[in-house]
């Protein structure tokens, strides 16, 4: 399992693949306050990334994988393009 719910934290681990996007989305839709832990993630499939980008959950840890640490995590936190419309759920 590369995505699991641990208490109120969604943990992404290892090679997250396209099918992980759906449970991730489900959990975030259910409770937008949930934090996503990227500490042990080795790769995030674009589908997974897109969920994070769209719902902007609080992120935690971005350690192991250099690519995620250097590029993905910062891009996720910086991604506030001006055309982004705040959405009500």
């Amino acid at each position, binding site marked *: 399992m590369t995505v699991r719910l641990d208490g109120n934290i969604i943990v992404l681990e290892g090679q997250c693949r396209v099918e992980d996007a759906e449970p991730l989305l489900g959990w975030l839709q259910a409770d937008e306050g949930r934090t996503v832990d990227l500490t042990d993630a080795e790769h995030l499939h*674009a589908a997974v*990334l*897109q969920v994070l980008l769209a719902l902007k959950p609080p992120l935690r840890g971005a350690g192991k994988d250099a690519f995620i640490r250097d590029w993905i995590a910062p891009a996720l936190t*910086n991604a506030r393009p001006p055309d982004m*419309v705040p959405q009500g759920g």
Partner: protein
Amino acid sequence: MDDLLQHFIVEARELIQQAADDLMALESDPTSGPHVDSAFRAVHTLKGSVGLFDLAPMGLALHAAEDLLGGLREGRGTVDGDVVDTLLECIGQTERWVSAIEQTGQLPADAAEEGYRLARALRSQFEQRPASTTAEVPEADLPWIEELMASSHGPDVSKAENGALVALRYTPRPDCFFAGDDPIALLRSVPKLLAVRLSNRDPWPPAAKIDPFSCNLRIEALSGAGLDAVKAVFRFVPDQVVLHEVARATAPHSGEASPDEGSAGPSAGAAGGASSRMLRVDAARIDRLADLVGEMVVAKNALAHLAGQAGEGMHRKDVAQCLAASQAVIDRLVAEMHRAVMDVRMMPMRDIFRRFPRAVRDTAGQLGKAIEFSMDGEDVEADKSVVEGLFEPLLHVLRNAVAHGAEPESVRLDAGKPIKTKIMLRARREGDRVAVEVEDDGRGIDPDAIRQVARERGVASGDQLERMSNAEAMELIFAPGFSTASEVTDLSGRGVGMDAVRSAVEKLGGQASVTSRQGQGTTIRFSLPLTIVMTRVMAVRVGRELYGIPLDGVVETAVVPTTRILPVRDAEAFVLRDRTLPLVRLADLLEIPRSEEPGPGMKVVVMSVGDEMVGVAVDQFAERMDVLMRPMTGILAGMPGVVGTTLLGDGRVLMILDVPELIG
């Protein structure tokens, strides 16, 4: 093709038609609840059937359409032109897909993309009206590169110290996940990253509506590696990525253009002609046939009984009487069965008429004409081949009415007409024929303009044109060569002119005619046989062969004494009641040896060929009969001088001759 798929195609066509009908009705009456319901049910059923096959893109688009209709049904959202347009677009695409499936067994290659596009368009109708079309920033717009440069906070911009930078903007296709792409994995393999920006291509829908499997990412990045190295990473998705080489601190120049929007593919080409080989029949008609077969069995048993009695020494006279009675019964039954079978082949005009409102609407939309289209007589029935054969010609005539008949609004207003051009499509029964008319109240046909065009295009000589009445001149629109390729547009036809319309109608055994009053409108009228009619033929013998001659061309038969036949140069003539008629010998026409039969008189069939009477000499007259003539098909289709064939009672084939064509 798989049986199930075939049924699906037939069913899908009906549901598509149903949905389209309802949507068209909704357009004129947006508040009509029953139509929303009916359209919803059609789309819902269709979506369900699609699910049985591997047709994901179609299912996706229909699912979105179903949701949208479902929402409308529950009173969320209102029906307006946009919504109907989008739904009709989805239905139209579905129809094209069904045709593609019928032809190739699968969806076309671009279906996935198209399906997603439709689904997105439908969903955007549903969710956020204003955002339905997010104008794409032209890719050549380059401020993003500057922003990217500014934000390049990466470990080391100096990595690229000695070379150019490459800026890339990668917009994965919405369905890329289904193709197995992982845009982030691609990004990961870009060498010497200097900056990364992630954003969304379209605004995100509300959280509850996000489709995790439709990619909505836009990835922008800066790399210090060379253009070729970056290009190599994206070699499988060249259409989704734009690369710019950015010389340090100088203006970037374009590297690769991005083509886009697999623009509207082949048009409704297949929508018209392709007819399914299945025939749906009213159950009552099948019951009637079954009853008749039952009666036939009874009649057959009576015959068997009679045979038995005859064997037991029944009186000859009684046998003859009973046989005659039995024959009469069977005769009646065969006639009724023939009628019943013909009935099975009867279908209402509705089956093709219902496809026209949409065609007219589309054409009017494309040309910016305001049209009020109405139909009448959808219940009129005719033989399946007649009804189906009418589709193409009628479509063409309707498009003509929109394209050429309807005047611009200002002209109509000046003429005191209502703004919308009225186009009426009417069918009605006229005895044993069916009349179909397309009438418009548009500009009408100017006979002088027709004369001029006809003269220019050499359709008729100046002399002939002068002599023609206006009505005759108008008929010239049906002449071959009258409409030229230069005026063939996408709309008024695929290279067919009115001459093709006329020949299509004539092939069905019908006639086409036109009446028009300048400034008041035009009516194109088709008159067609109701069924494939029984042809009366006269059989004649030449040598040892039997041939049929259609009786409608035969004036009389005569036996001409050989002495009355006069040689005229190298031809022959004979005198019949003080008229001299040319004589041809059928054996010569058919290029078979004349039989040397020195009879006292020559048997001649007098026929009218064009305006003239001609005597056709045959060896023997045989019986007259009603036959179900089959047109020549396949290799024989082009055979000159033969209109068709029919089977004789003894199983032989009788060729039915086209004598005027043989004479040439």
